[in-house]
């Protein structure tokens, strides 16, 4: 048990979760109080002591599933030799089949039969049945061979392709239509569909878990844990984020901007007192017989920071740009004055688009379609874009402005016009540059980041949430 636990903790650390020694001890202590055969309770006991960030839950769950996949009574798919225990499964299956009026075992079940039983299981939300069918489907369709160096996703894909779950959804909907006496309203239909989608989602998870269990049995825990390791949400690279990861990142941006705004606001409040307030000092001195013993100071004017964001939305940073736009949108909600510009080789102001649209997706869509950012060919030209920026808006930058440039500074060998950054830096309170590329790529090829960087107050590599947070901390 001890070995298992320490192996588990090591794997968690490998996956990037910060597990301290005390937390490890707590976990050991906690599992003592939990009946070991209660798998869920065991899992929660470990989670509550080891995982202190909701974002890490998924990583934890994966490691847990791998490490403890073959333990627990309900997971007795494998017998002593690690062979799949077909007998008991079959027996159970045939029982089920008889109950439904069918016959035969999983061995000679045709794909149609599996599909039919799956359909019924989904229709009636029969969880035990769904789990059993997931197993049968994996046996039948995944074509798993021991020792074959293929990832779990491959097997998952094969299984799902054979099951045709989209078609299943349509059939389920038809069935539901027939069941209800009168016609369903659109609302009912929507709810029904969501319910089925949910069940299918559960089924997919079940199949995934089944595949994982078999892979662990085949390859061993350590090897599996390594292949399943994924970066934590805060380490996900913006440039290569999947849809799901992107959604997570978006959720995390909101608190970050609030944090930024709060930090700046607090700094304003705690700032040194202003100049001497003569009137108030004289008024105060009356209580000391006219001796100005206690000087009074004026409260400093609240300093409202103005944010100017200039973002590259060209193809080379497309993924980052999507994120950037979300960031800008979130900032706009937090700061009283934000002006945003986007550019490729031309430059356009998009502040009003973010202001008019309550909804971020609409706003982003408008920016992508309406903003006039193409000047010649739609390839990045920082030089020209900056030229336009200076010409049209340069005059509006003043000592309150904080200017943020977002982009990879890949200029396609055009003129850099770095003087714009220099002039901006002279007028503005501060100028920052966020670069979504890894530092080692800077100044390679057509990247001219250093030319701009020399004039900015700070240039930051900003590839993931952790780095963005670092930047926010630096600012405040």
């Amino acid at each position: 048990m001890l070995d298992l636990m320490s192996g588990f903790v090591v794997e968690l650390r490998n996956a990037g979760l910060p597990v301290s020694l005390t937390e490890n001890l707590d976990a050991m202590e906690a599992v003592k109080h939990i009946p070991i055969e209660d798998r869920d309770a065991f899992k929660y006991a470990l989670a509550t002591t080891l995982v202190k960030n909701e974002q890490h839950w998924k990583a934890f769950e994966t490691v847990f599933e791998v490490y403890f996949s073959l333990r627990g009574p309900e997971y007795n798919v494998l017998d002593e030799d690690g062979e799949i225990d077909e007998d008991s499964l079959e027996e159970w299956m045939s029982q089920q089949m008889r109950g439904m009026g069918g016959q035969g075992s999983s061995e000679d079940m045709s794909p149609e039969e599996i599909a039919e039983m799956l359909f019924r299981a989904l229709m009636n939300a029969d969880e035990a049945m769904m789990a059993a069918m997931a197993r049968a489907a994996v046996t039948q369709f995944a074509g798993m061979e021991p020792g074959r160096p293929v990832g779990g996703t491959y097997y998952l894909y094969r299984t799902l392709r054979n099951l045709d779950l989209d078609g299943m959804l349509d059939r389920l909907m038809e069935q539901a239509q027939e069941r209800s006496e009168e016609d369903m309203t659109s609302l009912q239909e929507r709810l029904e569909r969501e319910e089925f989608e949910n069940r299918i989602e559960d089924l997919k998870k079940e199949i995934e878990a089944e595949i994982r269990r078999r892979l662990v049995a085949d390859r061993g825990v350590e090897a599996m844990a390594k292949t399943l390791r994924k970066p934590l949400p805060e380490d996900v690279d913006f440039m290569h984020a999947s849809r799901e990861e992107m959604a997570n990142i978006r959720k995390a941006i909101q608190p970050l901007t609030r944090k930024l705004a709060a930090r700046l606001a607090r700094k304003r409040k705690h700032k040194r007192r202003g100049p001497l307030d003569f009137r108030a000092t004289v008024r105060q001195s009356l209580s000391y017989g006219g001796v100005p013993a206690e000087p009074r100071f004026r409260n400093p004017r609240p300093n409202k920071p103005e944010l100017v964001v200039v973002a590259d939305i060209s193809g080379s940073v497309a993924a980052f740009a999507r994120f950037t736009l979300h960031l800008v949108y979130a900032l706009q909600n937090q700061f009283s004055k934000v002006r945003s510009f986007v550019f490729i080789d031309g430059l356009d102001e998009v502040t009003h688009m973010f202001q008019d649209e309550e909804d971020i997706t609409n706003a982003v869509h408008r920016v992508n379609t309406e903003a006039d950012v193409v000047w010649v060919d739609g390839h990045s030209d920082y030089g020209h874009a900056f030229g336009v920026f200076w010409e049209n808006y340069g005059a509006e930058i003043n000592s309150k402005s904080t200017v943020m440039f977002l982009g990879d500074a890949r200029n396609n060998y055009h003129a850099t016009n770095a003087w714009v950054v220099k002039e901006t830096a002279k007028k503005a309170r501060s100028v920052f540059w966020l670069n979504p590329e890894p530092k080692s790529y800077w100044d390679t090829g057509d990247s001219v980041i250093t030319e701009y960087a020399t004039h900015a107050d700070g240039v930051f590599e900003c590839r993931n949430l952790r780095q963005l947070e670092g930047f926010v901390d630096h600012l405040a």
Partner: protein
Amino acid sequence: MGDTMFGDLASVRDGLKDVDYLADDGIASVVFLAEKLGKPVLVEGPAGTGKTELAKSVAAMTDARLIRLQCYEGLDEAKALYEWNYKKQLLRIQADRGSDANNEDWTDLQDDIFNDEFLLTRPLLEAITAEEKVVLLIDEVDRVEVETEALLLEILSDYQVSIPELGTIEAKQIPIVFLTSNNTRELSEALKRRCLFLHIDYPQLEREKEIVLTKVDGISDNLAEQVARIVRSIRQIELKKSPSVSETLDWARTLVLLGVESIDVEQAKESLHILLKYQSDIEKAAKELTVEG
């Protein structure tokens, strides 16, 4: 801890159910462990998912007194831990001067004015000095500044408070401590390390339905099911603020009051403002519900 308030996991869940709090497995295990290990619980999650309610329910279940510390920006020692009642101390000194006992020397007087009599206990100190069972709720801990957080560390790890003039006051009993956070900022590692962590998210469909059935009087099973389903549907839309459990309950109550048996699109749209608090969200949800899914 030797004495066990809870027998096993199931009894925690049943106990909570008796006080109308439907805990899922995760919540029940964490509450159970918190008592077993004598550790505070940090509860995190979106607003209105029953974080504060959990602490109240645990207090009700164990017949303990609930002591609540509401956190806010600018909270300090004097309001969270203890404060010297300096007015009373001044009076004491004055009274002393009035009498002719001038020979009494200063150290005696000092001992005299720095004792329990002149100490105003604030929630944290009160929780650990209490004789009876106590549930301490530190609400919205993410609102205090990072620096103030440190104030909580001593009491959370060792259940004691150090007062320079008096020495260390140790807890007479170990209170069950809940800290809630809306996650507006990252809490410090030191704080997190000392706590068990519990994330309460929006409940699953089944559980939400159960909650509606328990909390709303006179609601039919059918309506509760519909309510839960529609709420889940709305939560899938990207909104500024998703409807919370408490808003679901409000909505269900409204529907019951209106005598609705089965919700149709029109009724849903008309009462959306109870579920959602932003005009833009309401418009969006109304649009989504009308358009075929």
